[in-house]
């Protein structure tokens, strides 16, 4: 496994933080507290954390419209994120970005991204930079099962192979792109094979099982860090919520959601199986649960009362510098 006790506890804390962040966000949206389009990551936490626990230093990620989990997993400030959802001036993006654009570039987060498959080409660029500089860092992009049908995603995969750069393509199959099943939108029968056809290995993981994702991610990232070019990670795990908050989910089969929440919860799974990997007690995890809950409470309380941006903030941050005569 390669995770010591601290590592196991940290991984759990990260997953739990994502879960509670998302559940609370859901509540606050239903309360009318948060504006805009918000896509929750609830249920898929093990994907993000299983991958990001391998990252540090100059390693970067680039995320999707469903980005909260990836950002938290890579270490984004949770309070800054919550404030951002509220559109507060203290938000990670000063309220200018919102849920779909949370970023922290200096800390390796090249941003959530509102454009499906907007991220993979950019990720290849960060990977290319690593190669040019002779660094061993990797660049991770997350894509959904729907996103892989966008041309930009294919281009990025091929270019990464051509340039042999350390780009990691994480494909999160949650079975749907919006209201459409992967069975329909991906024409071929075997998405893993289609992806491998581009010329890099894809490691498959059960996204309900943190330990399995962590293993697969380790193999993929190890491959790339060693200078062997790109690699893929293919995680299967349904989302517990609708595509966006408010989605009536008419595409779900009977009992599908109950089954997901009941049988395929990565937090439950972690608790049930962590003993195989280290000496972690239920109490320790309970303590984390409580800490996480109070962190989220604080984050919400602060976001709620944080100052809002004003008209004066509107047109800053478009350019770093705009020479004389700027618009």
């Amino acid at each position, binding site marked *: 496994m390669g995770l010591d006790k601290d590592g196991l506890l940290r991984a759990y804390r990260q997953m739990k933080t994502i879960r509670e962040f998302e559940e609370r966000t859901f509540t606050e949206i239903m309360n009318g507290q948060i*504006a805009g389009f918000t896509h929750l990551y609830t249920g898929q936490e093990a994907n993000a954390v299983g991958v990001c626990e391998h990252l540090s230093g100059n390693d970067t990620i680039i995320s999707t419209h469903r980005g909260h989990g990836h950002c938290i997993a890579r270490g984004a400030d949770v309070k800054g994120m919550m404030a951002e959802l509220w559109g507060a001036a203290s938000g990670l*993006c000063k309220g200018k970005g*919102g849920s779909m654009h949370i970023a922290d570039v200096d800390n390796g987060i090249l941003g959530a991204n*509102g454009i499906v498959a907007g991220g993979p080409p950019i990720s290849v660029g960060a990977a290319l930079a690593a190669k040019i500089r002779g660094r061993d860092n990797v660049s991770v992009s997350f894509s959904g099962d729907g996103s892989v049908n966008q041309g930009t995603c294919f281009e990025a995969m091929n270019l990464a192979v051509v340039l042999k750069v350390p780009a990691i393509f994480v494909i999160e199959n949650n079975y749907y792109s919006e*209201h459409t099943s992967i069975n329909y939108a991906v024409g071929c029968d075997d998405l893993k094979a289609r992806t491998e056809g581009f010329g890099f290995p894809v490691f498959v993981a059960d996204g309900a099982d943190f330990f399995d994702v962590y293993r697969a991610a380790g193999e993929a990232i190890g491959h790339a860090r060693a200078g062997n070019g790109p690699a893929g990670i293919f995680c299967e795990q349904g989302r517990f919520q609708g595509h966006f908050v408010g989605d009536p989910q*008419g595409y779900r089969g009977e009992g599908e959601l109950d089954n997901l929440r009941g049988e395929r919860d990565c937090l439950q799974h972690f608790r049930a199986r962590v003993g195989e990997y280290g000496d972690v007690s239920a109490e320790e995890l309970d303590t984390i649960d409580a800490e996480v809950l109070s962190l989220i409470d604080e984050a919400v309380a602060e976001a709620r009362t944080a100052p809002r941006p004003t008209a004066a903030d509107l*047109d800053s941050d478009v350019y770093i510098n705009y020479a004389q005569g700027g618009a």
Partner: protein
Amino acid sequence: MPEKTMRDAINEALHQEMAVDDTVFVIGEDVAGGNGSDGTVGCAGGVFGVTAGLYEKFGPLRCIDTPISESAIVGAAAGAALVGMRPVAEIMFSDFIGVCMDQIVNQMAKFRYMFGGKTRCPAVIRFACGAGFSAAAQHSQTMYQMMTAVPGLKVVIPSNAYDAKGLLLSAIRDDDPVLFFEPKALYQEACEVPDEPYTIPFGEAAMPREGDDVTVVAFGQMVGRAMAAIDGLEAQGISCDLVDPRTTSPLDSETILESVAATGRLVVVDESPPRCGLTADIAAMVSEKAFRSLQAPVKQVCAPHTPVPFSPDLEAEYVPSIDKIQAAIRETLQ
């Protein structure tokens, strides 16, 4: 007459035209919804519900879900149109023109010219556009100003449910490629809309307010605000013509110029950023053609030169407000 929302008016136009013309079909992401799932096919009807019921009524060959592949969607529409169909493709947000611009700008728009006038491409592409949902920088742009720049495209921006229905029916029956921009902030706005099909010709502006002092030209979402701004100034004895061009390409410059000939003053309102936009386009045209009648500089009221911000507070500052429109009108009268 029954009141209908813009969403329902567009939906009705699609239902009616598909019923009478079997070359019409819709294609896009989740225009049906539920395909391949264990749930209900047809459960979505578009993420804004605009194509609701088409799958049930016309089946899988005429209400066609696609993968997230906008270039392929537009290309499929363009190709089907070249061989005689009348596709209505949906690109969910106009911002996504970014991932399918070539098929719109270099293919559809140019076929007829490049091929020496020997073909037609009667495709319609529908987009939800504009700000107002705190949808941030990649889901709130208008984009119609950039598409107005492209020879070969017709560009439609309805400002109310009545116009939306009539313009969409014209768009589907038009033999040229038409981009149809639906300000998403207006989907829930209702007005009287006849049940029967009817068309509104392209290149004919509407004039929802008439007055003597100032000409106001506004596009899409801004038409309602301009109306409110004008109505609010009535008490102060200011009266305005309000011109809603409805189509920016072709543009009814006659109506605008006639109005300016009478008022001598012009305010142009759009929610896009200022550079190379529609407000400049109209202002330049009028400043040239009505040079002698203009008694004051043409005022442009538009968004600042910034991406659309997420925060509701900032977004409210970003989109031209009734106040700002009124201030501009007053300024031209000074």
